[in-house]
């Protein structure tokens, strides 16, 4: 025991009281949302013109979440992703030879039944819009690692 008994009882109190002056780490979601990084793996976006229907993405997927289906009005087959099975590993993005499949930072994919989790190629071709899912979203938090606070968030309003 390097310190005396009294110090070991009183000192923790001061250390705890110092935390009242730090800013809390809470995000008031859904009014503010943190901006993610370029490599974040979320929902996919498909570029229908670049996709050749080779099927490498379906072959490499560890959970067999991708199946190649036919699309009306186009002659090649394109991938259809079942988000109930997708584990967001990113192998399909990395192994696509034409770079047609990309992953965005969008992670709000929840729904009420399993059928609507299967995204057809036309659904995947649309870019996701965060303001449709969260209509109350007003602020965006940009994270920056700081040596005093851990992470500091800069709050900005969205520009419409």
């Amino acid at each position, binding site marked *: 025991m390097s310190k005396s008994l009294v110090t070991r*009882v009183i000192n923790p109190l001061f250390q705890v009281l110092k935390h009242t002056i730090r800013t809390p780490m809470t995000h008031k979601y859904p009014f503010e949302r943190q901006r993610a990084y370029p490599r974040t793996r979320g929902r996919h976006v498909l570029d229908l013109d670049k996709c050749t229907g080779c099927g490498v993405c379906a072959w490499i997927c560890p959970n067999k979440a991708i199946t190649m289906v036919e699309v009306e009005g186009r002659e090649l087959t394109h991938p259809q992703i079942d988000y109930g099975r997708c584990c967001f590993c990113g192998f399909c993005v990395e192994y696509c030879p034409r770079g047609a499949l990309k992953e965005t930072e969008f992670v709000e994919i929840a729904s009420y039944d399993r059928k609507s989790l299967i995204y057809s190629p036309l659904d995947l071709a649309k870019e996701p819009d965060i303001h449709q899912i969260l209509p109350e979203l007003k602020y965006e938090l940009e994270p920056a690692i700081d040596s005093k606070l*851990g992470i500091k968030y800069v709050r900005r309003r969205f520009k419409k």
Partner: protein
Amino acid sequence: MSVIRVEEIEELEGGLMRVRIGPQHPISGQGTIIVTTDGEIVYEIDVDIGYSHRGIEKILENRTYLQGIVPMERMVMLDTSHVDMAYVRAIEELLGIEAPPRAQYIRTIILEMNRIISHTYALGLLAESTGWFPAFFLWTTGDREPFLELMEMLTGARWSYSFIIPGGVRADLPSGFKEKALKAIEYFRERLDVYMDAWMENALFEVRTRGVGVIPSSKAIEWGAAGPNLRASGVRYDTRKNEPYAAYGELDFKIAVETAGDAYARGAVRIQEMYISLDIIQQALENMPSGPIKVNVPQRVPPGEVYSRVESARGELGVYLVSDGTDKPYRVKISAPSFRNFFLLEMLPTIQEIKFADVPVLYMSFDPWFLDADR
């Protein structure tokens, strides 16, 4: 571990009762601990695993070597990249190739950050189990955030990285990673000092954990303790030093060893290991060699058997891989550290008298994870 059937949970003699600290309990995790007690003194502890068994070893037989990384990671929630590393190390040994040096350094950084992420969570749970209203748990959960964000910057995910593949790593460090990582390390060093002040030197915490569950070093070796539990009883064993892998052979670091063997020593070893991990990350960032990050790897692995070991946050994790020449493994057997640590909990009432109030403290000081034990 015996299996206690439902009919056996009846009136015992002498006023004893069997209390199930089961899956729906604030401290138990995803399994059951059956405690035979008379209210204060514990006579027998029985751990009932199997609640979270998912059959990962069988799943891996139907996935190629690259695809097998994904279910392998989800075996344990917290130190995911260590499990990956064991599997990848086994594959690379059978293939006879070695990953390039830059990939080894990046792997080291990921492994050590993962160790920090896992140890903070374990320490938070230890503090909460001593009855401390969850202040400390929330501080540690918040202080992991810089490291989780760094991992997201590097790999794209917060805990299931899928980044270490046979042949190297998947991508290079993004720009600005080194400065941000150094800032995070500086912040975390200060926070570790605050934890030492407010928590490890807190009189009531010491009263609660000193002398509780003392395991002498001979018993620790005999019962198969793993990881920090072994090092807290005075045994100097660390796979990173005994069998170096992934750039540990070129870095200079110490091992954290304590001799007391009680719950306090196990917490102290974990905090010391976090200080050491910060040193390792700093060294690896500064001495990073340049070069390629991946080599091409054939799909089919030549037949053979190999056993590879890795020091995960909970102890030594081993993967025994049997390959038959195709692109899918024939058999993968995983030796999980938490499975061995649970045995320590069961054998403790035989050498020391423990009270019912000590059971959560001991349970959390071994840092077991039911997901790890069940695979």
